[in-house]
């Protein structure tokens, strides 16, 4: 899980031609806003800023708030970062330590508190219940790192609640429910060639000890035999027909959930 954020910059530099030119600055913005927001104002702050100023304006506000908070701890100031520092009256404030900044309520999202805009809420226009909800869970993966990872419910005005495993439901104006049952298997199979290669490279890079482990990556039989049985969608035990794409327990039909020799 510690890898989730680490290496963003390195990776962004390494992506080279893979990322189209118009996407590159947006990626940088996303990485900066994510890290800055997470480090300082938190989700409530980001959500409130977006509700008040739109997505791009909210992201910009979050970046600015992050820089202003952080500059108290690192004491730099040039360009836009300098602008943020100057605006906060903190340019050159190298004496302020992280602890001091927190004591001032600058770096603690708890002290900053959710802005009123967050309470007003950002309308979730068009809700989506999509495929592969069970994949929301899963420790150790980038997007499923939380112990409670999995169920994300965005209801109406600006609330995002995480609980349980495996469901993502956004309820707003015009909810779409999607049943791509079995598509998880489809993606898994699509990923199979990559996984074989990546797994091979990974093993090769991890030394003899790991290379000696069984080669059956994930312990998966890609033919699908002997693993989780497929259950047709719309089975009668679905509690809510609107989220019939999700099975009780959050498992995705077609998802191969095999024992892994790596404990993964």
């Amino acid at each position: 899980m510690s890898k989730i954020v680490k290496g963003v910059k390195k990776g962004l530099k390494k992506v080279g031609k893979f990322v189209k030119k118009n996407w590159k600055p947006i990626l940088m913005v996303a990485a900066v806003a994510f890290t800055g927001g997470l480090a300082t104002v938190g989700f409530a702050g980001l959500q409130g800023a977006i509700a008040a100023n739109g997505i791009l304006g909210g992201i910009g506000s979050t970046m600015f708030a992050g820089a202003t908070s952080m500059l108290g701890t690192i004491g730099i100031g040039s360009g836009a970062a300098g602008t943020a520092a100057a605006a906060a009256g903190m340019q050159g404030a190298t004496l302020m330590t992280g602890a001091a900044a927190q004591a001032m309520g600058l770096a603690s999202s708890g002290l900053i508190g959710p802005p009123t805009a967050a309470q007003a809420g950002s309308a979730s226009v068009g809700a989506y219940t999509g495929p592969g909800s069970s994949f929301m869970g899963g420790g150790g993966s980038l997007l499923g790192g939380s112990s409670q990872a999995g169920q994300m419910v965005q209801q109406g005005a600006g609330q995002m609640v995480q609980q349980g495993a495996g469901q993502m439901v956004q309820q707003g104006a015009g909810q779409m429910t999607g049943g791509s049952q079995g598509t998880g298997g489809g993606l898994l199979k699509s990923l199979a060639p990559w996984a074989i290669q990546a797994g091979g490279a990974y093993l090769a890079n991890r030394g003899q000890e790991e290379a000696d482990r069984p080669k059956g990556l994930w312990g998966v039989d890609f033919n699908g035999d002997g693993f989780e049985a497929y259950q047709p969608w719309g089975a009668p035990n679905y509690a809510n027909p609107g989220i019939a794409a999700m099975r009780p327990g959050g498992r995705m039909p077609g998802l191969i959930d095999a024992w892994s020799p790596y404990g993964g």
Partner: protein
Amino acid sequence: MIQQDQANQMPADPMQAQPAPQDQASLIDASDEEQLELMADAISDYIHGDAREHVATSMANAGEEALVDTLAAMSYQILTMVSDQVAKSAPETVTLDVLLPLATVTIDYLIEVAEAVGVPVPNMLDVQEDSLLRMIEIHMAKVGDDPEQKAIADEMFKEYLEDGSFDDAAGYVQQRLKDRGQDPSVMEEGGKELLAPKQNQLSAGVQQGLIDQSGGMS
């Protein structure tokens, strides 16, 4: 309103043939970019293959109004699937630096489907930006309470401030706000407000009263 599930129309999931394994040397030498290409191909196959009907229906239902939110939610779920599966075999690979680039192609593939079913995408760059940034919001909702994540983010953000990445990103946002006809000062004003939320007059009055009272008693 919850619409009827369209799941029952999903096609069977045909088995895809696995290619012959590459020799070990080529695997070791495979660049990050090549690995990204392979993963992107897999996602493309999924979106334009098994999931096509579902994606098309969802995009058509979303329309222009809900396009960004739908793109963000779908992309996030697809990337979650990818990361969860890949993490089992190559956990070192599952990092933001891999998934952010993948998010760009995922969003592009989904937009292709949206356009194919007649959803208007009047300003492509706006849609791309907003979709990715909305996805960041979703992701932050998920990891926001994790202290380990927060500590790492703190470290990374400091680097961005020091090496000029922050300035580049902030400059881009400012320019794009201008392009969209928005006041770029919203960044600064919004940022200040985030750090020091305006007190309402009642709470400010109560607070001042308490200060006065404690001062008077001492």
